[in-house]
């Protein structure tokens, strides 16, 4: 008896899911509107939420256009991003605005899109993609260099550390490269440790703890995003709150700006994610309308320190 009941339940459970799916989420038809698909690396931080806000701003008042925003669960799920892109092409998206989670891996599917006449605008992270219409993003190298100048100015001599993002991620790698390039011009500074923390706060914390153990005399750390920088701040606060270690992050998220105001962080390189979303989707709109766009849209960077942090507070 029990067997009959339970196996029926199995079928019923799956059925119920399917029913929920169909009745609850029935908004697939686009009513003849043109779809612009925005595919970020993930949707798990203020940064991506700001990109989405900017993108929504760009399509405001365009009743003939639908903005569809879909992202993988986590930035490392590159294959999921490829699937999303395939699905967006399938549903007839008229333009793709993409932040590639892995520059090499998403190129084939984007080439496929371009081959079908769907224009591709890259946002936040560039990739070697022949035929892309534009790239809207920060000059990450310049941003990394900006962080290095701040460290040189504040520290002068001694050991410093670098915490980088998911290896192979172009924008994170560029920030690290720009930082190292400029640090080299200061003979007194020595990069004692260089570790990836996959853009995650919890890993930033662990990596920083390890760095503090291996190099107790570290004077400054640059993390290629604020999530990792804030993780590093936690490690420093619990292990060496009095050492005056300088932490520089990247992105100037709300939390990082607050940490700068509180004196726990020294600086953060501000990108302008809202502008990225707005300008990349504006470019996509222009392409749909048959206008041309600039191949490179620089959305700018600025260093946020205690001096100007208040103006960045949201």
């Amino acid at each position, binding site marked *: *008896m*029990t*067997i*009959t*009941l*339970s*196996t*029926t*339940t*199995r*079928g019923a*459970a*799956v*059925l*119920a*899911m*399917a*029913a*929920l*799916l*169909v009745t609850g*989420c*029935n*908004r*697939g*038809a686009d009513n003849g509107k043109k779809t612009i698909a925005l595919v970020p690396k*993930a*949707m798990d931080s203020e940064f991506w939420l700001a990109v989405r806000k900017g993108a929504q701003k760009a399509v405001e008042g365009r009743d003939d256009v639908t903005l*569809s*925003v*879909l*992202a*993988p*669960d986590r930035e*490392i*799920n*590159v*294959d*999921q991003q*490829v*699937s*999303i892109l*395939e*699905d*967006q092409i*399938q*549903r*007839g998206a008229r333009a793709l605005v993409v932040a590639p989670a*892995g*520059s*090499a*891996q998403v*190129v*084939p599917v984007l080439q496929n899109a371009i081959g079908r006449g769907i224009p591709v605008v890259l946002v936040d992270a560039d990739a070697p993609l022949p035929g892309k219409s534009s790239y809207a993003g920060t000059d990450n190298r310049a941003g990394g260099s900006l962080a290095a100048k701040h460290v040189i100015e504040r520290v002068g001599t001694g050991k410093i550390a670098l915490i980088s993002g*998911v*290896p*192979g991620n172009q924008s994170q790698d560029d920030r690290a490269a720009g930082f190292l390039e400029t640090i080299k011009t200061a003979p007194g500074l020595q990069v004692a440790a260089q570790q*990836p923390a996959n853009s995650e706060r919890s890993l930033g914390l662990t990596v920083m703890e390890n760095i503090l153990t291996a190099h107790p005399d570290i004077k400054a750390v640059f993390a290629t995003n604020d999530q990792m920088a804030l993780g590093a701040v936690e490690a420093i606060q619990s292990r060496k709150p009095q050492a005056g270690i300088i932490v520089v992050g990247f992105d100037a998220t709300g939390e990082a700006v607050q940490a700068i105001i509180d004196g726990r962080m020294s600086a953060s390189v501000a990108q302008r994610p809202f502008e990225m979303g707005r300008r990349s989707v504006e470019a996509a709109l222009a392409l749909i309308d048959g206008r041309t766009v600039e191949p490179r849209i620089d959305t700018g960077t600025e260093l946020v320190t205690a001096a100007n942090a208040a103006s960045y507070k949201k």
Partner: protein
Amino acid sequence: MTTKEQPAAVLWQRMGPLLGLATLIIGLSFASPYFLTVENLLNVLRQSSINAILALGQLMVIITAGIDLSIGSVLGVTNVMLAILLVSGWHPLAACAAALGTGLGIGLLNGVLLTRLRLPHPFISTLGTMNVGRGAALLLAGGVPISGLSMGFRSATGGNAFGAPMPVVIAAVAYLAAHLFLTRTIWGRDLYAIGGNREAARLAGIPVERRLNLAYALSGFAGALGAIVLAGRMNSGFPLAGSGAELDAIAAAIIGGASFFGGVGTVGGTLIGALIIGFLRNGLNLLDVSAYWQMVVIGCVIVGAVFVDVLRQRGTRTV
């Protein structure tokens, strides 16, 4: 339970997941105008192929009441290895053979850790190799993706060859082979016997340890086969490939009716499980459902299916 009811029960057990899949497909056909097209269906098959292949490996060990947490890492390390060999000029067949051999080897190691070192549960041994494998992938690759594979290799494994989507063809061949292995060979049947009652299997003269080694080796092999398809699909080997893939593979096998308690599970059911996950993700993308909700829905389906497995097990124990 009466003997009269049993065939119906077995039928339900087989039909439950299939019915779920059918309902999903019918529902999605009405919900999205883009869903029921040949191209989209091929897309889903392509997108599901890697998970489906990994799920086959997972099925082999789940039948023995085991688990293989390392399969995603095996995929990662063999994916990187394959890309390195291809870029350094190896013949694609030789490179694929090396990757498959490595996968088989890591799987065998999982088996040996369990049967010879007598680690108490495969959760532990494969958790170990999962970390070792991921570290090895990062070390081999130096932390960065290795791209630039030849067009020939890409179309033969990840693209279209002879007008057919190769990931789907490779998965289909693997499914046919696994089905024949589990139902038509003595080794395959032994796996069910071991999962059903290990001690009874031993007393019946089944070489339990050797069969377990075989099951884990096959799971590693499946990881490497997934890596070959992934390399072709993504034009690269990347060290974080397959992070978390073991979980989707386990989910596919379980949704498809395999039991964590061992002794139960079919190749056909596993295929349906992998397709349910694939169609769910595809459908949710087409319907513009955000990643947040996708995780909730897929999580509910997994928990629902495993809960039913628990109910059934409780049922058979009380009978």
